[in-house]
């Protein structure tokens, strides 16, 4: 048990600490899972629906010819 959780009382249950490396293996598993799962297109939070450019170069206008 981490020293920050030690108190001046006695508990009636036996607290089992996680086996060394358990957290690491869970994290490793999640990293592997994340590399295989996900969407077909990105999502960017709080950035609106449509970004047309800053406009200074005309890129934000509808009449600009795409490349």
């Amino acid at each position: 048990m981490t020293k920050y959780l030690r108190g001046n009382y006695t508990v009636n249950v036996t607290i089992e600490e996680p086996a060394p490396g358990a957290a690491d293996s869970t994290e490793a598993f999640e990293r592997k899972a994340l590399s295989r799962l996900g969407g077909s297109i990105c999502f960017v939070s709080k950035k609106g629906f449509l970004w047309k450019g800053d406009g200074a170069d005309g890129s934000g206008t509808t009449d600009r010819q795409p490349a």
Partner: protein
Amino acid sequence: MVPMDLGRRIASQLSEATFERIAPLALANAEQNRPRIRRSILELAGRRFGEGDAAIVVAAGPSLHRRRSLERLRAAAFRGTLVAVDGALGACLRAGIVPHLVVTADPHAERIVRWFGDPALTTPSVDDYFRRQEMDPAHARDEIGANRTLVELVDRHGPQLTVAIATSASPAVVARCEAAGMTLHWWNPMFDDHDRPDSVSRRLHRDNGLPCLNGGGNVGTAAWVVTHAVLELRRIGLLGMDFSYPPGTPLTGTQYYPELRELLGDRFAEGYISLSNPFLGETWFTDPAYYWFRDVFLEMAQDTDSETVNCTEGGILHGERVPMVALDDFLAKVARP
């Protein structure tokens, strides 16, 4: 030990993971597609394909077939705008519905062209995706026959179809759409925060001049964004937007089954998440990716002034800004001026 809330924890990290997983292929496709770009999606801004300000966005979830949504839509003679995702195009055409706009974005090199009918497919694919997936059961029943029918339908209706196509789309999809006579309007997926100086989105926009559209993780959400943010339609009904699986669906028939099985082994079922559907009083289940799509959609719905209702009559997508409404009720409401 695999925790019980594993699915939700994975889902919460999928924004970054999606970028890492798909950006290389999506950007390679964008580079390859660049010489094919003729029209921007901004040319569709405010265009009225149908009557009035109402639209229906057709996604490819299992409720589309369970609820016979397309047959009912056709019978109701809906006169508003119809926007379909690529995976729902076949079901629409088979039901006698030609969508005004088709949206496609997935960069996958081989799979997505099948949603448009692949003329090169003559024997069942080694990839079992289309036999296993829940989105269009016609492909699961008869992979070759369904593809042949779809090739004929798309060839016949191609010149009537407008496609909102992401620069990330596979060049095979671009070639198929062009060969069928479709009109393509292009957009960039928003990959990251364009305000950052090293932003991928910014670099892509500088290179091809196209706007960046926040796709919300999947083509269904991207189609909804196109409908309200580009077409500027104000009353939107969703069909086939399940983001989940009906009770009783075999786990082998879910989108991410192979990945979850490989990663979790015999405990793969712990990667799924159960949620209630108040419209049907059923418990549906979903996987981490679909759960993330749902969360993202509900977050995005907070920022639109369009009215969106979910007429899927199934699935897990519901919230204060996305109420579940019966399709017939939505159709009756939008039929009124």
